[in-house]
Each structure stands twice: as C-alpha cells, then as structure tokens.
C-alpha cells in the first residue's frame, strides 16, 4: 500500500510539473507576442515628453517664462536647465546671447522683447556637440486686456 502511495505521489508530482511547465511556456510565448505588439505601437506612435532626450540630444527645460505667455514687461529673464556647463544660445528679435550654464546646468539670461510677437529660439550644446532646441513664443503688450 505504501509503495502504491509513493508511486502515486511521484506520478502526481511529475504530472503537476508537466502542467506547470505547460502554463509557463504558454505565458512566455504570450508575453513575447505582447512585447512585439508594444514595440510596433511604440514605433508608430512615439511618446514625446518635454524632458525626453534622444540619442545625440540633451535635455533643455525652460521654466520661465511659459510658452505663449503674454507679458507686459520689455525686459524678461529666460530661466531654464540643461546639461551641466552646456553652451546656451538665445536668438531673439533684437539680438543674440551666448553663455554657459552652471555646474548644475541652470541658467538665467535677460533679454529685451519687442512690442507684439516675439519668437525666441534657445539652443544648448554640450561639450560633445549634442544639442537641444526650444522655441518660445511670447507676446509683449502693455495694453490692458
């Protein structure tokens, strides 16, 4: 009797292992399928975020002023963050600025706006030549709205 129980346990154990292996294999192949589908979706619809950096690019975040802001001051500060010690250029309607971000990558640079539409192009380069670009649209008006 004991011998029979032992055989039954062994057979049952093997059967259990076979079933577990079957489930594991099925899950694995399903997972691979899902991954392939996800990759296809990601390639067709890339998610772009403000701080995402691609190969050959560095991060550039402008914290102030906000894009499309309506400002009532002629002189404003462009505040942002990029790679540490990156060289930053700002092209604005009336001039250009070239300077270096600090050790943390932070920068703040004053510029002068013209009345009405102002398209401000900001570019940052790290020492390897990787770059990041941002365009700020600002409207300067002293009129009350």
């Amino acid at each position, binding site marked *: 009797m004991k011998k029979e129980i032992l055989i039954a346990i062994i057979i049952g154990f093997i059967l259990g292992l076979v079933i577990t292996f079957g489930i594991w294999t099925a899950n694995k192949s399903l997972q691979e399928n899902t991954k392939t589908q996800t990759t296809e979706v990601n390639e067709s619809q890339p998610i772009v975020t403000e701080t995402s950096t691609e190969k050959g690019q560095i991060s550039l975040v402008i914290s102030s002023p906000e894009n499309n802001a309506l400002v009532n001051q002629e002189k404003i500060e462009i505040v942002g963050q990029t790679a540490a010690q990156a060289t930053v250029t700002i092209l604005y309607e009336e001039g*250009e600025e070239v*300077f270096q971000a600090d050790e943390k990558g932070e920068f703040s640079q004053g510029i002068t706006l013209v009345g009405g539409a102002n398209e401000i192009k900001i570019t940052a380069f790290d020492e390897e030549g990787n770059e990041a670009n941002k*365009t700020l649209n600002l409207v300067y008006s002293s009129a009350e709205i």
Partner: protein
Amino acid sequence: MKKKLTIFTLIALCFLLSAIAVKAVSPTPEATDSAVQEIRDKVKEIVREKIEGAQQGQKAGFFGEISKITDSLLTIQTNQGEKQLNVATDAAILQNGKKATLEDLETGSFSIGMGYLEDTNLLDTKRLVVSKKTELPVREVAFGQVTDISSEEEILTIKNEKKNLIYTIEIDSKTVITKKMAGKVTKIKFADIVEDDKLVAVGAPSENEHKIITAKIIYVIPGFTEEVSPTPTTKATPTP
C-alpha cells in the same frame, strides 16, 4: 484497485491544484507591466489635467497667419501648429493701427491674439492686432571644432562631428569673439583661436559646398585646448 485509483487521482489532483494556485499567486511580468503602465497613465492624466487646469484662465498670446475665419472663431497657423482664437464680442480689434471688425479680417493676414487660455490651443481673445509681420534677418547657430584657420582672410573652418557638417566661419570687424577665462567671459582676438578649439558661432548663413556663416558672435568653449592668454580689454562683455 478502485481505492488505489482514487488515491492516485486525489494526489494528482492535489498537485495540479497546487500548481495552478502557485501560478495564480505569482505575479506575472505582464500583470506587473500592465499595472505599472496603468499607474503611469493615471499619473500622466492627473499631471496633464493639473497643468491644463493651472493654465486655464491664464493670460496668453498666440500669433500667426490667419488660415480660417468662421464667425467669431479664427484659426491661425503658428510655428507650433494650429491655434484658435475665439474673438469675444467686446474684443478690441486693430488692423494696421486702426479699429476694425471681424468682417474686415482676411485669411493670410498676420495676427496677434491676446486673452485668456481656454485650453492649450484655444484662446478667449480680448485683443486682436492684425499687422504686417516683421521680417527679421535669418540667423544660424553652429557648433564645431576648429579644423583650419586662415589668418589672412580671417576665416575659420569648423566641423560638427555629430551632424557631419563643415562650416566656414567668416569674421568681420563687427564680430565679437569671447571666451570664458577664470570664471569671466572675456573678449579675445581672432589670433587667440587655435586649432581644435570648440566654439559656437552665431551669424547670417549662406551656402556653397559648405555652410558659410558670417559670424556676429563667436564663443570659444573653454576647457578643450590649452587656455590662451586673454587679450587685455577694459570691459568684460558677455555678449553684445
């Protein structure tokens, strides 16, 4: 024999159930992935809602060419895509400095809408200014490492390895050349630029077989070659 079969079936069933139970309890990678994705999506949604909420009602301005006029709704083509201006009935409309109405507006005109954000692409417009767009000189920014210097003609050749581009940088009497030395941005002379210096040049672009930039500003990036002695200047000027 029946008893043996029953015992065997029961034990086999027990192992089968335990195998399924273990499988059910173990977190599958896909379950974890989907849960993480779900949380990410929720966080993104909340952040987007918060940003939109914070932006809503903020003073803002859009500018671009009018591409469509529908009643009081103007569609303008900006450098950041299409935006809409919902022109309020009490909005001040100015065309070339004179008061105007919505009926006076034409597609293709450059307009600046000022008002309050309704959402990212829609502005509750309180003031609309239609005028000619100011054409500004085209400028280009170039980064590269100096590969050749023509001292007589005052021309630099720089190469941007990342873009595999070669720029010819022309210098004239108005070009301001600076370099950060000992923590200060200092004016330097053309002769102080040496091969292998890395620099950023800003100026007017033109093109032959290479890109040519007539530099307005050249900023020599410090720390790549041996520092040259600064040319004495009375005033340290960051940029003009």
